[in-house]
């Protein structure tokens, strides 16, 4: 074959024949060497190439190299720190508090301290000294003081918030809500308008099931071994086996719950520190850990992945983190969560839908805090949603915005427009 197309001539001129298949490259070289007609055509293409190069050269700015070391230093200084949501948690402490509060409520059923239950409780403790928790009267103390009205009120004061906490677990993360409210209970004064103990009992019975079901604490409770348990089994009263007093007993007697009591809450014991941010972008990551930063250009799915970081996914990540608290260590555990779409380096205070209420979803709203405490609001609006849906600025607030892939990103806060624009820059896509 004695034909070479113009493309091959340009490849020859560009020194790119080596990128062709060897046999084809060899054929082109030979033809250009041997055929004067192709050699002439080559010169024509050379002139075209040279002319085009000359034209482009007119639009070549003078380039001075900034220092690479300065660039490196800049990278080092600005490497974004993961946004942190600190979550303090107490592993067995909160569980014990829940069971103690529930057990106390159980013991107080019928408006009086049920002596039989109290006795069984005491018996099951095999003569252990009453546990005195700081600021919290032990059950035994309360029982001893059952004839003293103020003491009963005080106990009711402890029970009411616990019941309140249990009630809240129906709608939200059970363990977390109970933990917070029960933890607050000891400091609460006796409630003046507390429900009657009978009401509390009924309520608590319901909530014990709710809490127990959600965390499987009850299911994972130690098998009954004492006389009362045996009676319960023999009488067929299985619910007695799940009695909060028994759970409280297990905890208070130092036996604790079985090691796997919280196993189904989803986090292994050794995961004291959950690093959701460490996912390798090349290896793919879960919804919670999607990194928004630049990825390999060939990874076109990164854009899709970023889109998938919907508030729902973020909420799911937070939920997952909340759930993991149930199986944390005794130490305080800090979870680090990268909120996709947030400003790197600023603490994430809240991730929510916009608007916060109602059924219409117009975008996401991330609230972040600067080191001086200034709150910065990042809104990412859905395509075709205009920024004016955000309403007027609050007094002292400024805003900056950018439209990226048809979606508006708006940053608001009590900072200068220039500073807010800097934040916008940090939020612009790293790649395609």
């Amino acid at each position, binding site marked *: 074959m004695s034909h070479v*197309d*113009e*493309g*091959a*001539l*340009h*490849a020859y001129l*560009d020194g*790119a024949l080596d*990128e*062709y298949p060897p046999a*084809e490259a060899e054929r082109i070289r030979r033809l250009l060497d041997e055929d004067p007609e192709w050699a002439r055509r080559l010169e024509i*293409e050379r002139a*075209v*190439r040279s*002319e*085009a*190069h000359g*034209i*482009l050269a*007119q*639009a*070549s*700015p*003078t*380039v*001075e*190299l*900034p*220092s*690479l070391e*300065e*660039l*490196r230093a*800049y*990278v080092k200084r*600005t*490497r974004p720190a993961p946004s942190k949501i600190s979550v303090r948690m107490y592993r067995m402490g909160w569980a014990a508090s829940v069971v103690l509060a529930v057990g106390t409520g159980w013991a107080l059923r019928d408006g009086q301290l049920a002596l039989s239950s109290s006795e069984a409780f005491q018996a099951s403790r095999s003569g252990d000294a009453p546990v005195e928790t700081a600021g919290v009267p032990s059950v035994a103390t309360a029982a001893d003081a059952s004839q003293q009205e103020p003491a009963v009120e005080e106990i009711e004061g402890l029970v009411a918030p616990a019941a309140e906490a249990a009630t809240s677990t129906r709608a939200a993360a059970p363990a977390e809500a109970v933990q917070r409210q029960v933890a607050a209970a000891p400091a609460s004064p006796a409630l003046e308008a507390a429900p009657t103990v009978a009401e509390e009992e009924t309520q608590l019975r319901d909530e014990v099931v709710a809490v127990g079901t959600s965390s499987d604490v009850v299911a994972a409770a130690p098998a009954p071994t004492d006389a009362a348990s045996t009676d319960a089994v023999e009488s067929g009263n299985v619910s007695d086996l799940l009695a909060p007093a028994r759970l409280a007993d297990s905890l208070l007697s130092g036996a604790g719950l079985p090691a796997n009591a919280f196993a189904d809450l989803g986090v292994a014991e050794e995961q004291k520190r959950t690093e959701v941010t460490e996912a390798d972008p090349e290896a793919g990551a879960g919804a919670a850990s999607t990194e928004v*930063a*630049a*990825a*390999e*250009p060939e990874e076109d799915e990164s854009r899709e992945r970023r889109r998938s970081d919907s508030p729902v996914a973020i909420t799911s990540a937070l939920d997952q983190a909340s759930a993991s608290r149930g199986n944390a260590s005794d130490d305080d555990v800090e979870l680090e969560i990268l909120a996709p779409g947030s400003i790197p380096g600023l603490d994430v205070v809240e991730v929510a839908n916009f608007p916060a209420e109602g059924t219409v979803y117009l975008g996401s709203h991330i609230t972040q805090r600067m080191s001086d405490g200034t709150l910065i609001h990042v809104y990412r609006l859905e395509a075709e949603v205009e920024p004016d849906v955000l309403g007027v600025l609050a007094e002292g607030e400024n805003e*900056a*915005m*950018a*439209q*990226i*892939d048809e979606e508006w990103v708006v940053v608001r806060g009590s900072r200068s427009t*220039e500073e807010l*624009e*800097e934040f*916008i*820059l940090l939020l*612009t*896509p*790293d*790649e*395609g």
Partner: protein
Amino acid sequence: MSSIDWNDLYRTTFPELVRFLHRKVWDAERARDLAQEAFVRALQHEPKKPRAWLFQVAANLARDEARTVIRRKKHLVLLKTEAEVRESSAKTQDAKLDEQERWAAVREALDALSEKDREALLLWDAGQSYTEIARQLNLAVGAVGTTLSRARKRLAKAYQEREEANVARR
């Protein structure tokens, strides 16, 4: 850390990247900023194929530049050398006008090309190999030469036509 020789890559690629970007954003200073931005990201992510990565990111940055409404701040001001500042201030107004006129001519000629032809030409002029261009533009390596041949011819023709039109106007 990978075995990439960043010093060498930077020295050889940065000027090409600026040229490549300049012909997209038509603002020399901005082209330098974007090239720096691309390198900053490359240093952060240490891609396996940094050269191709840089050009891909640079192309995306240039595209985002066009899409983004915000007036971008030059947050890499600290990296600007004093020499650049001196150069900038020393340029006479006439020289700047002349430069802008030349750039406008080139820009107009480039605008006459199809997007793929233009991209291939700019990538080649920025030092990309046929294989790299083929990969970025989703072409066969053998088709790159043909694309470049067509792009060069059209560029030369469009530029020549503009020049002739200017002469006729005067």
